[in-house]
C-alpha cells in the first residue's frame, strides 16, 4: 500500500476534518497534542499529514508534495490551481459576500473594494460590469469601510457576527464556501487505487451525515 501524504490546514478546519476522518473509520492517532508539529504520522494507515497555512494547501497539492489536501473553496477560487476537486466535505460552511456601511451606495467617481480575495472580487464585479478599484488587504477587512478606505468589502461570512459588531451590513452574496478534498492530478493516476478507496470511504461517511 502506498504512503499517502495529506496537506491539512492548521486550526479549526483541521479539527473538523480530522474528526471526519476518524468517524469514516480511519485508524488515526487519538490526539495530536503538539500544535507546533508540522508533520504528523498515522503509521497504521500509512498516512502522513502535513500541517500548512490554509492558503498554502493547494500549492502543496498542485506541486505533488502532498497527494491530497483539504482546502476551502474560497482559496481554490482565489488561486485557480491545477488540482482535482473530488469531494465537498460540507465542513466549515460559510459564504463570500459583499458588505459595507448600512444605506450607502458605491462612490461613483472612485468606487473602491477592499478584500483578501482580489481574484474573486475582480471576477464578481467584472461579471456585473462595474468598474471598481480592488484594494488587497491581509486581514481586518472590516476596517476598510469604517475608516473610509473602501465603499465595500468582499469577505467570508459565517455567522455575520463580525460584520454586525463592526456596524456593517451584507449587500450581495457571491458564492457558498465549504471545505473540499483536492487531489494532485498525477497522484490521482499513479496512486489511483489507494486514492479511490480513500475517497470512497470518506464519501460513505459523508452520505451518512
Amino acid at each position, binding site marked *: 500500500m502506498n504512503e499517502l501524504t495529506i496537506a491539512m490546514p492548521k486550526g479549526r478546519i483541521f479539527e473538523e476534518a480530522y474528526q471526519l476522518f476518524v468517524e469514516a473509520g480511519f485508524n488515526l492517532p487519538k490526539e495530536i497534542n503538539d500544535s507546533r508539529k508540522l508533520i504528523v504520522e498515522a503509521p497504521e494507515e500509512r498516512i502522513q499529514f502535513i500541517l500548512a497555512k490554509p492558503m498554502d494547501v493547494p500549492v502543496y497539492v*498542485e*506541486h*505533488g*508534495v502532498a497527494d491530497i489536501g483539504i482546502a476551502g473553496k474560497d482559496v481554490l477560487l482565489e488561486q*485557480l490551481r*491545477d*488540482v*482535482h*476537486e*473530488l*469531494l*465537498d466535505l460540507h465542513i466549515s460552511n460559510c459564504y463570500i459576500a459583499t458588505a459595507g456601511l448600512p444605506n450607502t451606495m458605491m462612490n461613483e467617481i472612485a468606487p473602491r473594494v477592499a478584500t483578501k480575495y482580489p481574484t474573486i472580487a475582480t471576477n464578481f464585479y467584472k461579471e456585473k460590469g462595474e468598474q471598481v478599484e480592488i484594494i488587497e488587504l491581509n486581514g481586518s477587512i472590516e476596517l476598510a469601510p469604517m475608516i473610509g478606505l473602501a465603499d465595500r468589502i468582499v469577505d467570508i461570512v459565517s455567522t455575520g457576527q463580525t460584520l454586525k459588531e463592526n456596524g456593517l451590513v451584507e449587500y450581495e452574496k457571491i458564492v457558498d464556501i465549504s471545505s*473540499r478534498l483536492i*487531489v*494532485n*492530478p*498525477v497522484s*490521482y*493516476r*499513479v496512486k*489511483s487505487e489507494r486514492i*479511490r478507496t480513500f*475517497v*470512497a470511504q470518506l464519501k460513505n461517511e459523508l452520505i451518512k451525515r
Partner: protein
Amino acid sequence: MGKIQMFEKPLGMRDSFPKVNEQKEYIRSTARNFIRNKGYDFIKTPSVEYFETIGKASAIDESSLFKLVDNQGETLVLRPDMTTPIARIAASKLLKEKNPLRLAYYANVFRAQQREGGRPAEFEQLGLELIGDFSAYGDSEIIHTAVELLKTLGVESFRITIGHAGLLTALLTNNTNTMEQVDALRQLLVEKNFVGFEEKLENLGLLQEQKDNLTKLIDYTIDFKVFENFRPYLTNEQQYLIDQLEQLKRLLELQLNYPSIVSFDFSLASHMSYYTGMLFEIYAAGSGFPIGNGGRYDELFNQFDEKVGATGFGIRVDRLLEVLPKNDVKEKHTLLLFDEASYLKANVLAEARRNNAERVTLQFIASINDLEAYKRSFDEVLIVSEGGSLRE
C-alpha cells in the same frame, strides 16, 4: 513591475546550464534514435508563425500566445505547439509525397504564463505524429511507442490514462439539452472539478435520468474497462465509438502490461480542443504535472482542407528531466596547463588524447586567477613541461 534588472530574463524564460543541457541532449539523442528506428522522420518548423493560421488553429488558448507584429503589420505568434505546424506542412506538401506519414520533432514551444513567474513559458517538447491513418492500429502504435520510449529513456514508474473525446461528447450531448451545457460540463471535467460537476448537474434543470447517467462519469466505483456498460447510453449511430475503443484495448493488451501501465477513464477531457477520438495523458511519479499527452485529432486537418486521420503525442522534456533518475553523464575531463615554453607540446598532447575520444581543455596557466578553484572543475589536471613531460 519595477525597473528591469540587468540579469533579468523575460517572464518564464530559463537558461539551461551545462549539466541540464547535457541531460537534455541525452534525452534528445536517445529519443531520436529510438523514434527513427520506428520509421519516423524528424522535422523542423519555424519558431514564428502567423496568428491567422497556426495561432487560430492551435488548441492553445489565445491568452497563452506570445504575439508580435511583423513589418507588414501582420500578427505573428511564437509557435505554441508543434502539432499544428506539422499539420500545416503535411497538408500542404508532405502528404502528397507519402501517405501515411510519420513525423517526429524535438522543439521548443512557447506558452505565456499567467501565474507564478517561475513556470517555464518556453520548453522543449518531444513528440511524434502519425498522419493518414484512421485505424485503431495507428492509435495503438502511438500509445505503444510512448510507453516504449519512456522505458527506453529510463522512466521507472509511469501511468497512461486513456479517454475518448468523441465518446465523452456523445455521453454529454445525449444527456443534456444545449451545447452550452455540454461545454460547461466538459470544462468541469477538464479541471477535474467533480464537486462542481455535481453542483452543475443540479443547476442545469436536467431530468433525473440524465443526471444519473452523467453522474456515472465521475463515479469511482465504475470500472471503465468494461466498455459494454456504456453501450445503453449511446444511440445506434454512436455505438461505433465503443467498437473503436474495444479494438484499441484489444491491440494494447497484446503488447502492454495492461492494468499496471494503461487504464481507461471516460471522464478524461483535455484542454486541447482539437482531439476528436481517443486521447491520453501520461503521468509519472516524481512530477506533480502530467509529463505528456496525446490523442487523435482528425478534425484539425479540416482547417487545412484535408480529410485524413491523425494521431500523435508530445512529451515535455522539462518534466521528463524531473522524473528521470539523476545520472550525471559521467565522462573524464582533463585539463592540460601550458606555459610559453610548452605551448606547442601541449597542443600535440591534447590532440592525441582528443583523437582517443577524451575530453581535453587546454589552458595557458598564467591566465588563471585562482588555480586551485579552477582545478576543481576537472577530473584530471596535468601541467605540460617544455620537454613534453606531464606532472600533476
